[in-house]
């Protein structure tokens, strides 16, 4: 299970990073979202991958799962969700205000070079 989990997390992170480095706003937003999924999965695994362990102390539990990472992930998900919503709206605003979906406004730069 560890190998599968880490492969999935790594693949998600790599795809996210690749997309976040693209030149247009939509891939950047999708990339940052994928990156945050990868981070959430990673956080989830930091307490160790335990199946069938007790989270609350009981007398007959043989193994315990760490409940804290789940609380951390929940916080991270909520924050990440708000940030994604904000960046989608912002990307649309960039498209509307500047008339282009380039992250760096190319027209402005070429204008500066000419002058």
């Amino acid at each position, binding site marked *: 299970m560890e190998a599968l989990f880490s492969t999935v997390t790594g693949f998600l992170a790599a795809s996210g990073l690749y997309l*976040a480095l693209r030149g247009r*706003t939509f891939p*950047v937003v999708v990339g*940052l979202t994928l*990156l*945050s999924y*990868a*981070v*959430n999965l*990673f*956080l989830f*695994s*930091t*307490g*160790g991958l335990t199946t069938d362990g007790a989270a609350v102390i009981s007398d007959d539990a043989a193994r315990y799962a760490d409940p*804290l*990472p789940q609380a*951390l992930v929940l*916080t*991270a998900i909520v*924050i*990440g969700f*708000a*940030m994604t919503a*904000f*960046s989608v709206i*912002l*990307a649309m*605003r*960039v498209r509307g*205000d*500047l008339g282009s979906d380039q*992250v760096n*406004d190319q027209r402005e730069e070429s204008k500066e070079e000419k002058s």
Partner: protein
Amino acid sequence: MMQHLLVLPVLLPLLSGLLMLVKRDATRLPRRGIALVSTALLVVVTVIMVLESRSGEISYYALGDWQPPFGIILVLDRLSALMVCLTSILALGSVAYACAGDDRKGSNFHGLFQLQLMGINGAFLTGDLFNLFVFFEVLLIASYSLLMHGGGKDRTQAGFHYVALNLAGSAMFLIALGVLYGTLGTLNMADMAQRVAMLDVDRLGLVEAGAFLLLVVFGLKAAILPLYFWLPRAYASAPAPVAALFAIMTKVGIYAILRVYTLIFGESAGELANFVQPWLWWFALATLALGGVGVLSARDLRTQVAYLIIISVGTLLVGVSMNREAPIAALLYYMIHTTLVSGGLFLLADAISEQRGKAGARIVPGRGVTQPSLLGFFYFLGAVTVIGLPPLSGAIGKALLLDSAQPGEQMWLWPLLLLSSLAGIVAMGRSGSTIFWKAKPGDSDGPRLQPAMLAGLILLLGASPVLSLLAGPITEFTDASATQLLDPGQYAQSILLQNATGDGS
């Protein structure tokens, strides 16, 4: 009552921020009144906190009464008291300036401003690393909206860069937290400090990687050399009161570096003791050098002030990387000075640009300002102190820092710090003479400085002479703060041992 004092800097802005959400209709609610009263109260509360912290005792507030290391705590020591006090004074100046009309250019300026204050104060007070992340996000999301307050193409573009970079930064912060939690098993900073010392050798590499990743995140906030490129554009396009408040944002990064790498990875961290500082030294010097080049190249007064902030970041980080009592005390004094003065300069640049009409804040000859003697006086005061000419506070801070360097460090620090100051003198001299002297006579019935703007300027720029006059007591406080900061044992003891005897907050 006194024990609840610690939570007030977080609660007060939260409550007033929420209050301003009640009705969106701006005419009904006295938003300006609420904002001013709440920020003024915050100044009173934080001054009391500074006075409290002078006893040298480190007190904590256990939220929900969960005893550390299990619950989330807020910690008050000298450094955090100093930082929240600095924030509230800066905020009071910015809010006063915003009341002159900048707050009406978009919706709910004051509400967002208060929420950002809550995030900043929380980040300075928290004693839990994950909670630090949460407060970072609180201050960031408020800053995203504030940066775009009023709209405009420049702001949208700079805003998208700022948001995308910080989202990537947050992802890295979480990865670092995951690595540190996975290896140390705790997120309470005092507890982490103790566990780092007893670490297995085979986990050393992981913890080191996590610590470096944290440095990248804090470096992005603080704007160290390879990570500062977002700053000049974002700060130059932000509305003036927001840019003034942002002067504290880079210091949040520096505070986090100072806290984490003296407490968790400080003297008592065994194998990992002080391993970041040698790296930081070179990055800080490079930031200082490039800030000097940037300040000369700026063609807009606001960009120039943004580069002055980068010079100050370099100066502060050099102090952090020297990691002894004298440099840290010097940098704390310099931090008070530079935060207030660069905030004031952003306000001044806005006042100048408003009075010059079309020429705006660009450094070109054009129409003069309406009130040349008043604004010229403020510019002279701000320039002299931010560059570090005697007798104002900038000179004292820089002299303290230069004096604290050891012979091996002097070789690098002295020329670079003095050259970047020289670059500052040349740049500020040039832009001042262009704006005030090479100008056609100003429009005598143009816009004038309103009382609210004047109050903001006096509070922030006028802080500099006050800082010089009170240099004695302030340096006494910063000396003691540096001593306290470099003694992580005391921090851990006052948080974890009280718990063993069952004595809470």
